[in-house]
């Protein structure tokens, strides 16, 4: 109970800070964010876009881990956890794609450009879509669980290749991609002042907490539905 309340408070604070803290060219107060040339107000999106993208990846790996557990233990509860994680991941992936497209429109002119990170989030969207298409195409529960676990493992194994392919093939728009003169590494190293970094990591933790809470709630609901169905 207290955890839930603290989570709510944390996220509220994060949202207030992300949207409310003023941005100024020479920050003097602790609640002011520095002005990043070219980004200005749009920088605020970082507090929301990056965590949702991060979560959509985390959720996928959670789903895959439960899939592996199912293959070993054959416990239907593992399959429930796997599909709940995938459902949440799908949701966050859609959010990440939309927030990313909004960012792209305001910063680079068009909603979609096929730069490496955009392509990666799109591929993740495709994998989620494929996962759920597969699940809806199998009637027998045990087989459905087995096949979706296997598919998520195969997908997880091919995804790392994008990390190697992208730099060779594309120059990117995202900060930190090849061709970005200012970028150094992943987006998280993006020039953030200490107070921005605090809000950012608070947002990351908050969103992760949100995911964990939603996950546990939905798993509980799904299990109740499962046993309800078994009786009737």
């Amino acid at each position, binding site marked *: 109970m207290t955890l839930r309340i603290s989570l709510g408070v944390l996220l509220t604070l994060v949202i207030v800070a992300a949207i409310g803290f003023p941005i100024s060219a020479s920050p003097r107060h602790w609640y002011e964010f520095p002005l990043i040339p070219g980004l200005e107000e749009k920088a605020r999106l970082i507090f929301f876009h990056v965590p949702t993208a991060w979560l959509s990846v985390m959720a996928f790996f959670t789903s895959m881990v439960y899939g592996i557990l199912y293959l070993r233990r054959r416990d239907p509860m593992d399959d429930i956890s796997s599909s709940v994680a995938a459902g949440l991941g799908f949701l966050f992936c859609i959010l990440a794609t939309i927030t990313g497209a909004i960012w792209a429109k305001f910063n680079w002119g068009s909603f979609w450009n096929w730069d490496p990170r955009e392509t990666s989030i799109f591929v993740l969207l495709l994998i989620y879509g494929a996962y759920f298409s597969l699940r809806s195409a199998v*009637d*027998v*529960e*045990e087989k459905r669980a087995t096949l979706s676990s296997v598919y998520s493992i195969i997908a997880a194994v091919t995804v790392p290749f994008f990390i190697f392919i992208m730099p060779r093939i594309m120059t990117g728009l995202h900060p930190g991609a090849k061709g970005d003169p200012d970028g150094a590494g992943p987006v998280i190293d993006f020039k953030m002042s200490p107070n921005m970094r605090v809000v950012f990591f608070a947002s990351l933790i908050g969103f992760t907490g949100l995911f964990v809470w939603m996950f546990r709630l939905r798993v509980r609901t799904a299990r109740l539905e499962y046993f309800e*169905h*078994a009786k009737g």
Partner: protein
Amino acid sequence: MELRISARGLRMAFNRRTIFAGIDFSVGHGETLLVAGRNGSGKSTLVKILCGLLTPTGGKVEMTGKKPLDVHARRGQIGLVAPYLQVYDEFSAMENMRLTMALRGLLSDDGAHRSLLERLALDVRRSDPVRGFSSGMKQRLKYALALSHRPSVLVLDEPMANLDTDGMAIVRTIMEEQHEKGILVVATNDPSDVTAVHTRVDLNDRR
């Protein structure tokens, strides 16, 4: 090889509906196991579990010689005849026989195949595509395929399906021989199919 098949606490469920539970049995060399039950009671499901085609939801089946046989060895000791076991009908009877032997990793002996086909009254048509076979001929071919590797365990699901009186007579001889030389498992609605039943598993009301 002298084998014993034993099952303990076998349970099978699909989509949360239990088909049967609490099945125990043991059958050894020179004995016959009869799997009886109404249509839909799960006879074929139990047969598939025995043959390694399905994994039971609970319990286990063991095949033991001097020591327990692994999955691969079990596969080599079983021959199955069943309505749901289809043959490759674009190939001929001989080709099907060579194929099943090779799939088991075994070398083929065309002479042995021919005598087996002869015994099942299929020798004349051995080179014709199975597509043109009558249902009785296909059933007899299934017996030839099941016996070609001389299995210790012969499993028959609906042994007399599609057979005329001549066919049935041939099969009865086969069943008697198997009963003496190995283990015979028969799943059927019609108890008159089998004589000398040693062990019986009744699947009616076994949920």
